[in-house]
């Protein structure tokens, strides 16, 4: 049995090994890069098939491999466990197959592309993320994979980072993903509190009905975003900015179907709740019809395929809600293959259709039939105002809120750093002081954090000051969490190391750029990544650390400290959620504005931004 479970580890580790090798290779070694990556993925394919055979012949429901425990305390433990069951293995085999195909396709396709190596690195990370998600033994591990998939999405959408729309849309997608990620964190938080013994494949839960529903809702939100379901569908066609191969595998196939998988993994929370099932099903149906119509009116081929794919995922949601797991999986696999292929050969559609048209006179389609038809057409072209609602209503109002915060005269930011330090050290040296004992102190701290994170969200001034405000927010967030966790030094230190490391790194990078004469104002895109690739990479690292990406100590600290918040404190939790969403967004926005969207092409006034 151990040999079999070690297979699970091999599947996860082989792409990591491949990535390690590739990162040491120069870009011009194209063949080596693609072959090494393919080896890593093929190991997954073979491993996946082998595991599936084992499950089938031994008639096992699932396999589990316990990994090293990262953290354990009285309440809960966090171990790197893996788990393989039929749905996970199906997804794994599908992902390995498609990734192999896309690697073969991409080797000549991306030949001599500036970002050849970058592409394979990102693709490899993406595959790793997917395999972690589908083989995760617990929600924390799943979350790690989920985050990797999200971040790689961002990098592939903005693959041509000198183009304005690519960067803008990458940011749009990643900001929705951020909401999904934070929702998932909340879900994990609820589960820690109420279902500490939950594990995948466990029996349907009994117990706190409300908590189960709340958890299910958070996962549903995450799944809706990831799978581009109503009302988030609008991001899918906008994500098709990278090379055709990456659009095919991400948005035609693997990334968008991941939401279905998340629902299957967390079915214990909604399986017995008829209302939830109805909600899932009706959202699926709503998606199906809205995306179907949007797909029908699209003039660009990738958008048409993207909406078509999402419409089918809507149907898969319905199947999942009905409990037809086998059908859902089959549908998922076939839809992925279909859409992936369609996108890969989408440039051919021009020649194919034109050749057809020479011979078949296209009858001008139905004349204006009814008012409802027209209405539907107009709505579908406007994408049911979904994009407009999110971009103009929600986003715009957040910006306005931020501008209001910017108008507050707070004096120097440094003062608040000192304030934070003062509160921190007072609490450290004299835990029983009257301030610390004030029960609303954490909320107050988060509120101060809010002011700063909103300010940095809306500022159009220099990036360093925005970064500074973000750091102040992190300090206050830390204080809030730390106070809430009853001054747990270890967790606090973990969190704080991450934040300080990220903060200092970010500052160093930005000041270095500033010294070399690079523009830093946030009112335009600068595209410094082209001239300063190392700085760009370091800054990404800093942003990820700030955002609590699961490779950083910040994540673990954040995770652990969040678990101290009791569920009566849902107001605090909500405030922290908003804060977490925003700080990730601001971090990514800083990265986009400073490093992406390349200088010359998007330089105002005639900036060719539409191109």
């Amino acid at each position, binding site marked *: 049995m151990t040999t079999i479970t070690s297979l699970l580890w091999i599947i996860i580790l082989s792409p990591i090994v491949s990535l390690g090798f590739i990162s040491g290779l120069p870009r011009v070694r194209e063949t080596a890069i693609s072959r090494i990556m393919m080896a890593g993925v093929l190991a997954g394919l073979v491993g996946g098939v082998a595991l599936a055979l084992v499950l089938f012949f031994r008639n096992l429901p699932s396999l589990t491999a316990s990994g090293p425990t990262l953290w354990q305390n009285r309440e809960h433990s966090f171990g790197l466990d893996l788990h393989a069951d039929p749905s996970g293995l199906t997804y794994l085999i599908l992902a390995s197959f498609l990734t192999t195909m896309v690697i073969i396709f991409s080797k000549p396709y991306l*030949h001599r592309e500036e970002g050849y190596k970058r592409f394979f690195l990102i693709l490899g990370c993406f595959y790793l993320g997917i395999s972690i998600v589908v083989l995760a033994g617990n929600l924390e591990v799943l979350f790690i994979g989920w985050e990797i998939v999200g971040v790689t999405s961002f990098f592939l959408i903005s693959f041509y980072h000198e183009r304005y729309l690519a960067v803008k849309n990458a940011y749009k997608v990643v900001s929705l993903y951020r909401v999904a990620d934070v929702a998932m964190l909340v879900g994990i938080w609820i589960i820690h509190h109420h279902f500490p013994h939950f594990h995948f494949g466990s029996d349907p839960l009994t117990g706190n009905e409300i908590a189960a529903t709340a958890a299910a809702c958070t996962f549903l939100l995450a799944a809706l975003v990831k799978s581009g379901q109503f009302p988030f569908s609008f991001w899918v066609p906008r994500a098709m900015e990278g090379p055709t191969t990456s659009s095919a595998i991400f948005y035609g196939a693997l990334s968008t179907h991941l939401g279905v998988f998340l629902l299957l993994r967390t079915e214990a929370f909604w399986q017995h709740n008829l209302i939830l099932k109805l909600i899932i099903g009706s959202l699926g149906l709503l998606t199906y019809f809205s995306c179907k119509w949007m797909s029908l*009116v699209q003039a660009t081929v990738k958008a048409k395929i993207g909406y078509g794919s999402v*419409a089918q995922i809507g149907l898969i949601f319905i199947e999942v809600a009905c409990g037809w797991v086998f059908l859902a999986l089959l*549908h998922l696999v076939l*839809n992925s293959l279909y859409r992936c*292929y369609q996108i890969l050969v989408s440039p051919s559609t021009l020649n194919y259709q034109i050749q057809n048209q*020479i011979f078949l006179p296209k009858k001008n389609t139905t004349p204006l039939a009814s008012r409802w038809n027209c209405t539907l057409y107009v709505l579908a*072209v406007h994408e049911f105002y979904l994009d407009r609602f999110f971009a*103009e209503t929600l986003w715009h109002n957040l910006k306005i809120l931020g501008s209001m915060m910017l108008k507050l005269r707070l004096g120097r930011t440094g003062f608040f750093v000192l304030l934070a330090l003062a509160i921190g050290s007072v609490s450290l040296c004299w835990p029983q002081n009257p301030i610390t004992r004030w029960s609303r102190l954490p909320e107050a701290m988060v509120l101060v954090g809010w002011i700063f994170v909103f300010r940095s969200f809306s500022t159009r001034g220099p990036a360093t000051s925005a970064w500074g405000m973000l750091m102040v927010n992190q300090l206050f967030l830390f204080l809030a969490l730390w106070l809430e966790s009853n001054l747990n030094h270890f967790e606090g230190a973990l969190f704080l190391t991450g934040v300080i490391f990220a903060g200092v790194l970010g500052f160093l990078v930005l000041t270095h750029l500033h010294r070399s004469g690079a523009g830093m104002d946030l009112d335009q895109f600068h595209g410094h990544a082209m001239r300063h690739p190392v700085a760009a990479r370091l800054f990404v690292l800093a942003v990820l650390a700030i955002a609590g990406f699961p490779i950083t100590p910040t994540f673990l600290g954040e995770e652990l400290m969040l678990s101290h918040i009791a569920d009566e404190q849902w107001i605090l939790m909500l405030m922290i959620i908003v804060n977490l969403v925003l700080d990730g967004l601001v971090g990514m926005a800083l990265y986009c504005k400073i490093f992406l969207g390349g200088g010359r092409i998007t330089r105002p*006034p005639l900036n060719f931004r539409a191109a």
Partner: protein
Amino acid sequence: MNAIPSLDESFDEARVLHLLREHLPAQAPIKDFVHHNPLHALQDLDFFDASLLVSRAFGIDTTLSLADYRQFHRQGRIADEIIDELIRRKSPAHDSPEQRHQILHLEDTPPAPPRVGSLRTKWNKFLPFCLEDRIEPILFRWLGGFLDQGNADWLMPPCEGGLLASLRQLEQQSYASLFRTDEARRLFHQRELTLRDLLARVVGRESYFENYLVDQQFAHRGWSGLVSVIEQRPETLFAPRKARLRDLIHFEMILEIDVIEQALGPGWEPLSHRIHHHPMDYFSPPDPDPAQQALQLWQEAFEWTYYDQVLAGISFLRTRQGQQADEQKELTFQGVFCVDDRECSLRRYLEASDPACQTYGAPGFFGVVAYFKPYGACHLEKNCPAPLTPIHLIKELKPRPRRGRVPMHDQQSRSFLGDLLAAFALGAGSGLRLLSDLMNPSMRPDIMHSFSHMNANGELSIECTDPETREEGLKVGFEVPEMVEIVGKLLSGIGLTKNFAPLVYIVAHGGTTANNPHHAAYDCGACSGRPGALNARVFAAMANRTDVRNSLTKQGIHIPRETRFIAAMHDTSQDHLRYYDVSQLPMTSQKQHAENVRTFEKALDSNARERARRFASIERNLEPKRLRRAIEKRSVSYFEPRPELGHGSNALCYVGRRHSIKGLFLDRRAFLQSYDSLQDPEGETLLNLLTPLVPVCGGINLEYYFSRMDNHKMGCGTKLSHNVTGLIGVTNSSDGDLRTGLPFQMIENHDPVRLLMMVEQKTEVIHKQVASSPTLAQWFDHGWVHLVTIDPDNGDLHRYEKGKFHPYHPIAKVEKVEDLEKLIREHERMRTSQIYDATRENMPVVVS
């Protein structure tokens, strides 16, 4: 509405629209992609003045950077002697080494911000968002929906009246509105509203209108350009649309009012009342600066360093050949190829494998100007140079094999059940197909196959039987006198009027590419971006007719009875040759043909090997059969963005006798037009040749030139992220502008140099002929194309500059090589696509 502000300068709508049309990209829907000079509007200016102007006006790079040139200089690809020579040419008094030192050490300065766009962006100061971000996505959606030729499965409800009428109808019928505000809705329905009214509302003062409109339309030059092209040539669309640039502007202005009204509330002030920014003359000539002059010198030095090698080679050959007379030998066959630079090497190999053959070059439509109607087709295809308007129609008379289907591209089912079934059925099919397409690429119905353009066994309506009937307003087939004219003109043009071989091949060309929206750019430029087999076949059939030959004899062109013309087509991607109507030949000719086929195949083997040196996916030392197979697979691979390299690296055009440059290795960089000056002492034929040749070759060359200089703005960037839009173009993004020009994968090996026309004719004759044609003179006088003459008697070279000829003495020494194949085989490949690295792949000029 606000009162119209003071009329300090009147706005002439027609003039501004004309200005826009001139400067917007003139690229037709992508199925009709034809190369042209992107700066066509400025062709009456000197080349560098025009370049500088667009660079200042639009912020487009029209030269390389100083750093790039310096890198070329370090590599020895810009020679010191040439720089000195150019400096002397410009200012004979100056000390050239010192000036050379100056330009060598000049530093790059950041370019000035472009003029266009400076006014409209001011809006963004007064709005809490970016105006373009709000307007463009929805504007493009409506434009795409309106022009869409069938990508969407539910097309916009059609309307005869054009964009505005269609949208008005939708707005009226629909319960959902196109606009956010009542004001916009109200204005939208006011049919009598003019652009002036709308501009007055948004911009205010009339003196700003022109600037504003230019800013607005050049913010999305791709869409605006396409609309303007369709407006001028509506027949280019299969599904007709009444596109008008005016309508586009009108709609965009209403969208602007809508967005601004929503943000600022009613009663907002127009833009010009809010700013202290003076209207500019965007297209006034900019002041030249030293950096610009240095760049110009660098560019010329780069060009002349290459030209000089070529000219040195030609001089060298002349001294070697001496007064070698045209010896009369028994010819096996003659081949007439397209002037296309890709046919260069095939001709070289043919002559090498059979020294008793002769090759000629002529524009690949072979004088046949016609529309083509495939059997059962409902639309016509134009098979002649784009500027010509045919009055003849060639019909395919027999049914062709059924085209296969690719259900993945077909319309989506609108029913719930059909949709569901499609996903299941096509899903499984796609998986298998993906596997087989990757492991073993093969021909599919959605691959553009050159030989499928015309049915090889189908009969054509070549002879006009009834001159009175018209089909679609065209004469079906040609009458005999017309045939005589076509055949006679072509043959005398290329100097093939005597010594006919038993077989004369008329070789057209086309390309086979998969997953490639730009396929038309790989086909024959002289056939409006289509394969030229049709023209070759029609020509051969005409030349084989006895009545035609009889009339030709009267003109002094005597074609022997035994001589037969055979049409053929060369697939430049696959290196395949297919011959047409061979079964109709007499037996003796068929036998001779069978032998020649072996020669052709041998030449194709070598040609494939030479091409393979640039293909990373193919091992160049494979044995011929496997190499040919690999090349063929490459052309049908969906994953291959470079099935072939098109006209990449084109730089030269030679007009003259083939034997004068035989032995000169030009690395597939020359258009070769045959011309015999001895048969044309007055140069009338020459003028007939040059009149279409210079715009076609010059257009190709300049399209590559500017696409290479600024691939983001003049080209369409990398192919890999292209998204086919409305079957009329490509975008990078579903919210994005149409991209015009050439993709990066076509230009990366291209040295951006202007075309050098080398004409073998007396200086006086050319001078007279060029002066007689103002359009031709414009190309040469303003430096859009260089002209050098080669004296047919003594080989003296003269270069043309601003109406004058100056003697030219090449500086370079050209290398003589024994084993050319080895040289080709061992030449280095590019490692990166940095220009100075990528173009190192282009080989130096040598003689063999």
